[in-house]
């Protein structure tokens, strides 16, 4: 039981660090200094402490709750070194679908805001989800099929059995590449950041999000970064043999999209769909074809 409390906590902390890392990398690439160590945490606290908190109704608020809660639940399905959490009770497929709940919650919350701009943003976000989930499920299928199990615990065990040679990335390089691609889109990072549209917040889903609503989304982002990195690590990098290697792997995984993100402009939604359906999906299918024959 204690694991179930520790796992989200660890995820949150790691996620905070990731946000920090993201902002630092961005700053480096743009020749800035970057924020201090605890800046993400302070941001969250500050947002929660704001005096004007405008709510558009209960669903608006529950949407944020769902967004946070979904990730809190999802991270317990991803085994950490020494902690399996609920990985035995719900496998990979459950995890993938669990990670859609925050999206749904966010969508509901934004919808309740009664702002057409927000709805447009959700339309974009869901379309993008349709795009990146396809290569992602291809990847998930490939891994599950390769290891003959949908249980992450068993997948990790199988990967760790023979060192690097049995890691997913070594066994299934094409799938690993496709997964990276999909993760980029999943995190909403450039060039796939149209639906979050942080630069044009007024026409995105966040338009009505202020104060603790935005704070909640900040927390969600921490979980999201962590979840993406951890999932990739679990699928392709052999999970964590111990905490050190786990952290290294997770941060390395997240660092890649961060670095790529700052090099690219932005795609339109349709272009995202087209690109993601074309390349990572194809590569993923090719990878599965290699696995099966």
């Amino acid at each position, binding site marked *: 039981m204690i694991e179930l409390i520790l796992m989200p906590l660890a995820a949150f902390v790691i996620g905070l660090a990731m946000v920090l890392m993201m902002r630092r990398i961005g700053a480096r690439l743009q020749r800035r200094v970057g924020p201090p160590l605890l800046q993400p945490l302070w941001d969250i606290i500050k947002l929660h402490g704001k005096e004007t908190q405008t709510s558009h109704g209960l669903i608006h608020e529950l949407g944020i709750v769902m967004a946070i*809660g979904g990730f809190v*639940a999802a991270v317990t*399905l991803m085994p950490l070194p020494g902690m399996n959490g609920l990985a035995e009770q719900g496998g990979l497929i459950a995890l993938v679908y669990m990670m859609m709940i925050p999206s749904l919650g966010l969508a509901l919350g934004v919808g309740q805001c009664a702002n*057409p701009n927000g709805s447009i943003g959700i339309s974009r976000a869901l379309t993008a989800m349709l795009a990146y989930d396809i290569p992602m499920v*291809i990847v998930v299928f490939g891994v599950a099929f390769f290891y003959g199990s949908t249980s992450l615990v*068993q997948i990790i065990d199988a990967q760790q059995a023979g060192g690097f040679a049995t890691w997913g990335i070594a066994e299934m390089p094409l799938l690993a590449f496709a997964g990276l691609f999909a993760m980029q889109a999943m995190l909403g990072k450039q060039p796939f950041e149209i639906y979050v549209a942080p630069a044009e917040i007024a026409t995105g889903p966040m338009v009505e999000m202020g*104060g*603790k609503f935005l704070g909640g989304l900040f927390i969600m982002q921490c979980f999201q970064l962590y979840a993406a990195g951890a999932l990739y690590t679990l699928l392709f990098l052999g999970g964590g043999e111990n905490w050190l290697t786990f952290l290294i792997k997770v941060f390395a995984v997240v660092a890649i999209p961060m670095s790529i993100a700052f090099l690219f402009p932005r795609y339109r939604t*349709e272009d995202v769909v087209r690109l993601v359906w074309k390349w990572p999906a194809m590569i993923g299918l090719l990878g599965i074809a290699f696995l099966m024959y």
Partner: protein
Amino acid sequence: MTSLDHLVLVSALTLALMLLFGRMRIAGRLAVVLYAVQFLLLMQTGALLGEPVASSLTLSVLDLQMHWRYDALSWFFAMITIGAGFFCAWYAAGVWQERYREEGHSPRLFHVALAANVLTMLILLGSGDLLSLFIGWELVSWASFLLMAVGGGPAGRAALRYLVYAFSGGMAILAGLMLIYTQTGSLDYARVLSLLGELSDGQVWLLLLLIGGGFAVKMGLLPFHLWQAAAYAETPGPGSSFLGAISARMGLYALIMLLVAMLGIGRLTAMEVPFTFLSARDLIAWIAALTVIIPTYIALQQHDARYLLAWHGIGQGGYMLLGLMVGNAVGSAGGLFHVFTYGITQAALLMAVFAVVHRTGTADLNKLGGLVARMPLTFLVLLFGIISLAGLPPMAGFVSKWMVYRSLVAEGMPLLFVAAVVGTLGTILSVYKLIHNIFLGQLRIEHEQVREAPLSMLLPMLGLSTLIFLVGVTPGPALSWVAAVQASLGLPPVPYTLGGIEDPRGGLDMLWLVGILMAGFGVGALIFFGLGGRSKRVHQLDNYAGGHFLTADVRYQYSDNFYAGLMHLIGPWYRGAFLWLEKALTATVAFLSAVMNGFYRYAQPALFVLATAVALLALTTA
């Protein structure tokens, strides 16, 4: 008199009572009670776990024996049928019925149609041989036609379209049965089963085409899906729920009888499709997968809530067949279980939509919005429903879909897996559009005074929602039925637990998952409500509108063409290939008809008599 006789008799009694007293106000409640009695009688038959229960009625026509019996499969489908009838009658029993009467329709006709549907379905499900199967099939088709047509107007046209499809399908089935009869000399299951193995592959293909095709019409499998959405959507409220919940599943039942019980998955796998590397099983699975994808994305385009859900109904049928075609324990269980989960989901969803129609008078997604503030409980029902429909945890739909996915992974069917997920994603998109356009966004001025749905309609909706959630949390009991059905079909039974599936290679335990999800929500709520300051509720118009100020008489709602970007991309794919097919067939019939008419109009009679005389004489002397 066996317990099955009692069940059918009470069902027939329901029909008779509705015919007699359907005009009265009490009729609705009477129907509810009678459906409940039927449900209890069904429970009493014990057909699920014990031996099949036979009816004492047998008929013999042309030396063809007909008899009726219930086994676990029949019981399972009958349970859903009567349950759907119960909830739909409940929904109709109160305010809805009065409104229906006020609108100039006949509640009696509606109750009769519903009772007839339940009765005929029970008869179909009891069929003990192929002839009684066909008879039941026809009865169900016409009962559905009745229910569809009672709406009048566009419903009549849609029902007629259904009729043409269904009846053509019925005739194809009859042709297939005659094929079986010529080959085996019998229509009895056991005898046919023992002789079916001797059929050549070509004959089995013909059989699949004729009988399978006929059954597929009812299920709305591609390419016979065009009739279904309009026919189901235009049916009066509870009727639509009923049809959506179970009617098309009769096609699945019959397909199970044909594909699983009679031919067997093994036979299908052994049959190669000529010139390809596919087997018959793959082919059917792909038809199922395409049935998932194409109607789902057509649903995405709809801007009538009823049509949207009806199109999804077609797509969800694809999952069921897909799961069955995978054929392993988890997959077939998933397919069967989805019949149940989807049934309660669709019923709840359509009830919610019709509750909105009841209050606002429209189901047009472009003319609604913001109703969550006025109809919060209906919103909740719809929310539960869409989560289940989209197959997200923690609702019932997730479990059944998870099982289908899991089996696809286990059997190594990547493309089908992707197809299934593509369908799910499309579902998520379109159900969000559904809930957003009805309940979220800005409330329209004309709906300011709308009230929550009346209690008589709300209760069954809430009941179904509870069921959706409970089955999602503890699928075990329901899975035990499914396992019994599998056992009766000769399939490996699914290893179920109270919370889900036991599988050493990755199982599912919904108790834990829902628990942690609830805990997660709790944490989220703690953070959100505990950490921050109090939030201030503002008017829905008090939001950022790009520098404009919104006035109270102008409402902005982003609803029309909700996924404009996506449509821009995939719009060109929406070509009416199947509609063209249908039109081409109609045109062929019209052409033939014109030719025949011309014959009777313009033929020089004497010339034809002469020609016939010559032809016949030539035949005799030749």
